[in-house]
């Protein structure tokens, strides 16, 4: 009798355990709904270990979704935003340090996303950004001294540009900033940095001018007087480089992310018709007065050019650091939103709450501007009306985790 009891109990335990695991919720299908579904957003969450995390991409119905959840979002690589969009295709970066798979996601009108292609990049590329030139050509920057060239339609690697010989003394291989296409040329900023993307050597702007058709280097341009360093910080869809109505090209210089004041942050210009950095422009932000703000910026983080000389963006002000000696991106909401007049060289603080470095996306949606904020009262995208100067009361769209990226599809 005892023998039977034991067997029964043991099997009961196992039976219960298997039944419990059997009862799992089936995956629900996404319901088709009405709506524009023209705004792609990414939210980013860190894991308890602090080293890994998740990024979630989904399409929402414009500004009508007040509270976004990740329940139906798709997982993309953590750490870097999507590198670009062509038509309805979003290209996402591999999980930083944990994957080499570059992915393409296609948007459907009902707001659903499908992964349509994958491309394996060489191991340890740490590809983090690039430029989609056309449906047949794109560039990806890596940490291995090569700029990868690929075909976005077929998702195949087609070649590379070897930039390792352009390393300055003390640098193993340079990385690139955001590339910018101007007619038949591509400007590729060189970042003379170490494995942590920190600048090495003297502050300077270093850039290659590359022939778009042949991918050969035409010339190298440098600017060593202003102290500006690291042009084209690869952050967000706007990529921190643009052309204004005069045909002049502007590049944002990121400096050393506020860590080292020797490397200055600001804006540089390449005038229309020239292929040299305009020595008369070199606007250094570290000493720039900001209207409505007592402190000075040490890092111009991200920007979006609206037009008419008006540039919107984020600047890190060390006065708001808890420890004046160094930034703490977790505790310090030290980044303010600014409106920059690139023609008159003025900067004005906007009435938008301060945010942290992981939440610095700015772009436009119809006639509004979206500013991502990780604030004390709310976290998500605030709207700003550039005509009236009106800011939404709290986030217009509340996002889980960090509001990392947004993109409007203009159908």
């Amino acid at each position, binding site marked *: 009798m*005892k*023998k039977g009891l*034991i*067997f029964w109990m*043991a099997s009961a*335990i*196992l039976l*219960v*355990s298997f039944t*419990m*695991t059997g009862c799992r919720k089936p*995956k629900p299908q996404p319901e088709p709904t009405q709506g524009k579904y023209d705004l792609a957003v990414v*939210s980013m*969450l860190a*894991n*308890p*270990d*602090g*080293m*890994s*995390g*998740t990024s*979630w991409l989904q399409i929402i119905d414009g500004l009508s979704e007040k509270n976004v959840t*990740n*329940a*139906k*979002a*798709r*997982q993309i690589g953590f750490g870097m935003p999507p590198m670009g969009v062509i038509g309805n295709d979003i290209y996402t970066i591999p999980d930083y*340090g*944990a*994957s080499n798979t570059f992915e393409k996601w296609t948007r459907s009108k009902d707001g659903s996303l499908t992964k349509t292609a994958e491309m*394996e990049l*060489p*191991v*340890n590329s740490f590809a983090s950004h690039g430029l989609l030139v056309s449906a047949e050509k794109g560039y990806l920057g890596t940490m*291995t001294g090569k700029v990868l060239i690929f075909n976005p339609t077929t998702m195949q690697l087609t070649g590379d540009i070897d930039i390792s010989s352009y390393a300055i003394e*003390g640098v*193993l*291989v340079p990385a690139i900033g955001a590339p910018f296409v101007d007619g038949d040329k591509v400007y590729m900023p060189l970042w003379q940095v*170490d*494995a942590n993307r*920190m600048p090495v050597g003297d502050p300077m702007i270093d850039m290659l001018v590359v022939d778009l058709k042949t991918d050969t280097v035409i010339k190298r341009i440098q600017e060593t007087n202003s102290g500006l360093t690291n042009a084209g910080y690869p952050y967000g869809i706007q990529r921190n480089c643009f052309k204004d109505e005069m045909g002049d090209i502007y590049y944002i210089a990121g400096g050393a*992310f506020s*860590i*080292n*004041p020797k490397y200055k942050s600001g804006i540089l210009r390449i005038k229309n018709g020239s292929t040299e950095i305009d020595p008369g422009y070199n606007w250094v932000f570290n000493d720039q007065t900001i209207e409505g703000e007592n402190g000075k910026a040490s890092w111009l983080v991200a920007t979006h050019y609206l037009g008419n000389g008006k540039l919107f963006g984020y600047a890190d002000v060390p006065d708001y650091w808890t420890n004046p*000696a*160094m930034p*703490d*991106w*977790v*505790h310090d909401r030290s980044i303010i939103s600014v409106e920059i007049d690139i023609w008159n060289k003025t900067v004005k603080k906007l009435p938008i709450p301060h945010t942290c*470095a992981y939440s610095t996306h700015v772009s436009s949606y119809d006639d509004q501007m979206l500013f991502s904020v*990780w*604030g004390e*009262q709310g*976290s998500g995208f605030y709207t700003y009306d550039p005509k009236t100067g009106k800011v939404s009361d709290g986030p217009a769209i509340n996002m*889980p*985790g960090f509001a990392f990226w947004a993109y409007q599809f203009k159908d």
Partner: protein
Amino acid sequence: MNQRHIFITFLLLFSLVSVSTLSAQTARIVGVVIDASNEDPLAGATVYTPKLQRGEVAGRNGEFTLSGLKAGGYEVTVSFIGYEKQTQKITLREGETRKETIRLKAEAKSLHEVVVSAKSEARQLREQAMPVTVLSSVQLAGSVSDVSDILGKTMGVTIRSQGGVGSASRLSVRGLEGKRIGFFIDEAPMNDHSDFIDVNDIPVELIDRIEIYKGVVPAKFGGSAMGGAVNIVIKEYPPRYFDASYTIESFNTHKVSTGFKRNLAKQGLEFGGGGYYTHSDNDYVMESPFHKNLIIKRDHDRFDALGWGFGMKARKWYFDELEIFLEGVKNNKQIQGIFSNIQQAHSKSIAGVLETAMKKKDFIAEGLDLNFSTAVALTRFNYIDTAMHRYNWMMEPYIPVHPLGGETGSAPSKSTILKTHVGSKLNLNYIITEKHAVNLNVFQTYTHGNPTDTLKDVALGYKTNYNSDMNSVVVGMGYDYKSLDDRLLNSVTGKYYFYSMNTILREYVQPHRENPIDLKKHYWGIGDALRYRFAKEWMAKFAVAYEVRTPTESELIGDGYLVAPSGSLLPERGTSVNIGAIWDKKILHGMFQLEVNLFGNHLYDMIRQTRNIIQTQYDNFGEMRSLGAEAEVKSDICAWLYGYANVTYQDLRDMRKYEQNSQVPNTTYGIRMPNIPYFMVNAGLELHKENLFGVRRTNTRLFADAAFVEEYFYDFEQSIYQERRIPRSLRLDVGVEYSMMGGSLILSGKLGNVTNTKLFSEFNYPLPGRAFSVRLRYVMK
């Protein structure tokens, strides 16, 4: 030293000689040792035959066998702590098998024997009020598994191992792990020495028992384990002992271990020693979790470890026991890359320890028991990463991480970390009356660290390694109340922690200032554990504690480079509750045990890592709640079959309400903590038969074990399309053990992961597939 060598050789020869003249010695005594009053078997009783100078230890059911005897008269002396020694005179004929039942009478009670109950130490521990699982040597015996396999099958415990032999492994008790779980060898903390010795380095045959404390940790473990503790107790061999074993396993793994003991009874001196050597290539094949369809054979995972120790115990020099031990450990470990292909980076370490321990009952006053130990350890750890090329998985070279080389991190390294540790432990237990006892535990550690890495300093352009001095003192005071009929036992303990750290820290940002660090911190904790015995077989336990985990050195100080300092870090605080019931019944064929526990834990100021753009940093911004249940049933189903099954369900959830410094609700509030398995089932059967197929003096055992872990996520669950999961797994192991010559020679074999199922640890590190293991062991009897 030479004398001992000769002595051991002589011993070996003597035993072999005894074995070889088997034919003329076929008589034997088969017996059982039991308690005279209640017939309880006395597992662990010593059965000694002076004529042969041989000792036996009574097994789980009190059984023993003295075999290979010539005809004639023998005196057999049986002893067990708390009982009066008994000597029997037995005369044997040629080839006779004599069955004897030895009934021992409990010793006349004196003041401290009341508290020391006449049971094996393992059983005593189980009956404490603390929630503790004890794996006795009987359960460990014969198993070809290593320690982590055994621990992994215990309810509430998982081993998070990153690979094969010698790889980093962390103990996880009820979901809490890493630095929250203390790992001890003979009550000496080993968490800080994980570079030198790991749970798996200890050969199973040297272990007497493994104590697993869950949720509430006894004060005597000092330190700051808060989720639980695992204490591995090394065997106290019978007065005369010799043991040697050799194991060969898959992936070119070889393990050798040996232990010996020699007693000089008149002088009250014992000498003992032992050692082990392990080598493994760990060259198993794995599927890359990062590159689709990439199959990799691990080719840079070699592990070598050598450990030795020997010492002396004196029983007649003022103290009841005075021990002096000298130990050393040396190991070499290659680093196997999983995401990228690492071909050169490796580490090596060496450590030497001198320990003394003393025990005395009735120290200074009657009823005051002293237990004091102190140890000095010198350790050296090297990390070497100087390759001038990295390689991809096709062995094509590409640039290293820095102009000066390196495969890992962002700069090359050739580091030497020298550390001196001095630690002492004092335990005083005072028995006031039969019902009341108080105890005091003081635990002290001092560590002086001297790290250097000139290569890295040149690569970074500034020095980041500085000397450090760390002091920690933990004081625990406890009060035990025990009712006269031993039904109720209650232990309440208060703990006080002091921690200080003195070093220099280099700021990461320009201009890289050197900041002196002089931290002093102190905290307190309290706990209560209660045990009530309803009937002889039924016992209920209740324990509650408020514990504190002081931050580790690396959390407070960082590494001067990638990990920023967090000098203001508070300790973690946790409240834990455990309710359990144990049913321990003697049945026809042996024993039946059922244990059920319910537990809960709420952790505040949880120290979590957060990533800045450049560095990582530790912060107190976590809050976590765990609730769970575990149950285990073990039974001798019939005379030749033993079975067990256990199930653990642990539900750990993020309880942080808001994002840091804000009123923004935490997105992951109430979501299960990622990367922690939550549902595990283990079950197994063991068949055993003596003299199978009529071959005499043999014992055959067949094992089969199954371990099931439910699928879990390795990120916070967010979406119905969540992809990163560690898949559900069912692992089967089978083994056989064949002992011959009355247990002197044991041959065992095991096939692990029989079905070659894909197994992963957290972060999707692939674990070995099917692997075999064969062991030959000789035990002097």
